[in-house]
């Protein structure tokens, strides 16, 4: 409970923190993201509190039964539990807010760090955040208190006493259900990779995907694991070998009650891993993405010479960011048609932008990239349009027909390149032609000149960017690296923070759920281990079988979660256009690794606690 309050308060106070609000220039989207985040958090926190609450009441049924047996009236017991719960809730809120205040400063610093904004973080208490937190948790607390009050009315006395003896029976399994689980999960993966043709179909697919993956995962834990364990049991050489007998049967016996928990953990892990990976990928790929969208630090179309001069002076006067290179890029806009229908679909009506080979080579060298293309005659090279995954194969052996005012000329694609030199503008269809051809076309159609400047430390050119923005008119289509980078950083950093924060909450919760569950079970298992000790199982062997069981309980949902997560990521990268064509391996691997390490921490914590419980 304290934990939940801390998390929620930290999050809400961030939302109200003036530093964070100031740091974001697009405030509306920020607010929306934060509100969405807090809704998810409330839902999650509520579920978590209810879960742990039911866990504790289960443990206390006996105590309540005893009070009843001693002659306390139901009403009195109910009231007692109610007040107890309310007081505990109140204390939790107070402690949570205090801890949250300390933590929120830390998190504010993290957010600002991610947004790359050096701001002194003041230490302050946000009244709005406190009120928000108190209201939310009072409601949850009242609800659980009311639940506690009803406890005594819900059960018969005999049930209260029997609570802890509620035995789980040896589970049955069915081969069909086990197979169904695999088929369902396979189906969900398959449907995830279908590219929907309409929005309705997308929703239908999403629904089918969710249902089949949830049901499939549940069946997997409920039946397939049992089936596998049963098969192991039949292999006498394995089953009758040392403590395997105890370990396997113990797992079998427990899995019925655990199937739901394991499913939740696997799914939460999947969601967490994929969410953080997506957030991290946005952040991670931001710079590359910005470089593709705005290859140069400043680019604008030349319309008026005096304005051009003014801009040039402004850039020159910024001594902190000396100019590394400056180039005029003549571009010819022409209509045309591509012989590959795939590319034609993309191109539609829009103009094709034509650049000469010399300009292309020179511009790329200015950006410190190797380029030495040589074209002759009717040869041309395509440049990969941004946000697409076209490859050289889509261009090779296809032709493009350009419509000049008096005639049509046909060019043959020799390959495709990824490096871009002009700013993004839909349709982003650029081709490079030979110098000779370019000047030939230029005699008929006047090229547009794009002025491009590349400066040092382009990430921090805020001041100059603002100044140029004042000078340049709308028609000049000013594109600055800083603006695009900054926009990506803001949304990417914030996404990463919110997704990471929620992921951390999920992770903490899943870890706690397993921890609690394993500890209760260890409590119940104590007598069993006691028997084993008396029969002559050494401490070492006992610990080994405990370890194996916990590895099973921890490892299985983690593996399933990671597999689900990776598949979800594959699907996500097909949906989010920004992620198309990005190599996400590194962010995904880092995310999974971090997740795994924290998860491992929970494993060791659980293992130690269970061992202590059993050995005492």
């Amino acid at each position: 409970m304290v934990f939940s309050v801390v998390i929620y308060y930290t999050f809400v106070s961030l939302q109200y923190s003036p530093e964070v609000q100031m740091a974001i220039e697009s405030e509306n989207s920020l607010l929306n993201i934060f509100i969405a985040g807090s809704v998810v958090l409330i839902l999650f926190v509520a579920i978590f509190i209810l879960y742990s609450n039911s866990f504790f009441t289960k443990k206390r049924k006996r105590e309540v039964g005893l009070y009843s047996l001693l002659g306390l009236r139901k009403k009195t017991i109910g009231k007692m539990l109610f007040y107890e719960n309310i007081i505990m809730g109140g204390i939790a809120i107070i402690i949570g807010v205090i801890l949250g205040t300390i933590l929120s400063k830390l998190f504010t610093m993290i957010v600002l760090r991610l947004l790359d904004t050096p701001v002194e973080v003041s230490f302050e208490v946000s009244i709005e955040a406190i009120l928000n937190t108190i209201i939310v948790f009072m409601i949850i607390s009242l609800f659980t208190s009311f639940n506690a009050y009803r406890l005594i009315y819900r059960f018969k006395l005999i049930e209260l006493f029997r609570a802890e003896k509620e035995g789980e029976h040896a589970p049955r399994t069915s081969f069909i259900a086990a197979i169904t689980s695999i088929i369902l999960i396979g189906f969900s993966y398959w449907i995830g990779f279908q590219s929907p043709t309409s929005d309705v179909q997308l929703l239908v697919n999403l629904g089918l995907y969710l249902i089949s993956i949830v049901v499939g995962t549940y069946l997997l834990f409920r039946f397939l694991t049992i089936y596998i364990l049963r098969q192991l049991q039949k292999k006498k050489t394995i089953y009758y070998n040392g403590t395997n007998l105890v370990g396997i049967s113990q797992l079998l016996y427990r899995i019925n009650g655990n199937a739901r928990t394991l499913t939740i953990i696997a799914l939460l892990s999947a969601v967490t891993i994929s969410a953080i990976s997506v957030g991290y990928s946005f952040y991670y790929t931001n710079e590359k993405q910005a470089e593709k969208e705005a290859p140069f630090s400043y680019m604008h179309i030349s319309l008026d010479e005096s304005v051009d001069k003014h801009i040039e002076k402004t850039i020159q006067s910024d001594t902190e960011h000396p100019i590394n290179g400056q180039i005029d890029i003549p571009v010819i806009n022409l209509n045309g048609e591509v012989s590959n229908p795939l590319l034609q679909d993309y191109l539609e009506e829009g103009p094709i932008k034509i650049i000469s080979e010399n300009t292309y080579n020179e511009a790329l060298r200015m950006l410190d990239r190797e380029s030495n293309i040589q074209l002759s005659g009717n040869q041309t090279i395509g440049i990969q349009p941004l946000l697409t995954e076209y490859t050289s194969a889509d261009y090779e052996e296809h032709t493009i027909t350009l419509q000049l005012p008096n005639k049509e000329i046909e060019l043959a694609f020799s390959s495709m390149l990824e490096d871009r030199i002009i700013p993004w503008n839909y349709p982003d269809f650029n081709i490079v032609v030979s110098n000779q051809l370019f000047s030939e076309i230029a005699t008929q159609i006047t090229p547009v000149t794009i002025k491009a400047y590349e400066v040092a430390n382009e990430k921090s050119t805020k001041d100059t960017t603002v100044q140029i923005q004042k000078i340049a008119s709308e028609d000049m289509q000013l594109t600055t690296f800083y603006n695009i980078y900054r926009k990506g950083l803001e949304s990417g950093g914030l996404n990463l923070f919110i997704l990471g924060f929620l992921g951390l909450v999920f992770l903490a919760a899943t870890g706690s759920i397993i921890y609690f569950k394993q500890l209760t079970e260890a409590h119940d298992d104590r007598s069993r281990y006691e028997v084993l000790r008396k029969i002559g199982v050494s401490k070492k062997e006992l610990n080994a079988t405990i370890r194996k069981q916990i590895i099973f309980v921890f490892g299985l949902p983690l593996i399933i979660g990671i597999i689900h997560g990776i598949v979800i990521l594959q699907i996500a990268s097909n949906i989010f256009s920004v992620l198309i064509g990005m190599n996400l391996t590194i962010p995904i691997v880092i995310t999974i690794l971090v997740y795994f390490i924290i998860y491992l921490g929970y494993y060791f914590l659980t293992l130690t606690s269970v061992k202590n419980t059993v050995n005492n």
Partner: protein
Amino acid sequence: MRTIVNAKNIKKVYGTKGNVFTALDNIDLEVQEGEFVGIMGPSGAGKSTLLNVLATIDQPTSGDINIDGTSIVNMNEEQLAAFRRDKLGFIFQDYNLLDTLTVKENIILPLALAKVDPNELEHRVLEVANKFGISPILDKYPYQISGGQKQRTAASRAIISKPSLLLADEPTGALDSKSATDLLESLKGLSEVDKATILLVTHDAFAASYCDRVIFIKDGKMFTELVKGKGSRKEFFQKVLDVLSALGGGQSDSI
């Protein structure tokens, strides 16, 4: 005749300075192979402590214990566990069966732990189950069978590894008289036919009357010893009752 148990001057003291309780006070005990020995005494006399010490579950404060020629006093945790597995068999009042295992699995547990060959296992389990008449319920779970059947399962588990010494702690305590008689007959059979050495802790004079010899302890000290000799079980039962009434605080029907 081998000497299975040879315990000398066993002393067990609980508590710390100022609040010391002597549970066992210089007890000597010797049990020969094939003997069926009962240990009786009022509550708190130290019966269970003695059994626990002999079972290596508890360590004596001082004294020396040899079981089947091996001294158990200075063994470490690992050695003790192996020793319990190889040399001792246990039957407890509350059965202590694992409810996650079937009857059969419960019985073979000690052998599985000792990594005995699976074929050998199957063979031994049938042999033992026949002896105790539980072959029809081998595939059932403990919650599906009666108390008497549970205790016979526990007894089967105790003897399957052919232990040097079988320790029984109030095995009839939770059984009805029919089941108790069956179990005691089986144990007697084991001792007479298979030459099993059995140590039985009980406060039930009826159970004790099945023994060859009964040792009475009181306040942690040896009180007296009764040997059955050639008399009938009924006569021996009467003798046991007489001693108990002299001992005081024993069975309610002896007052």
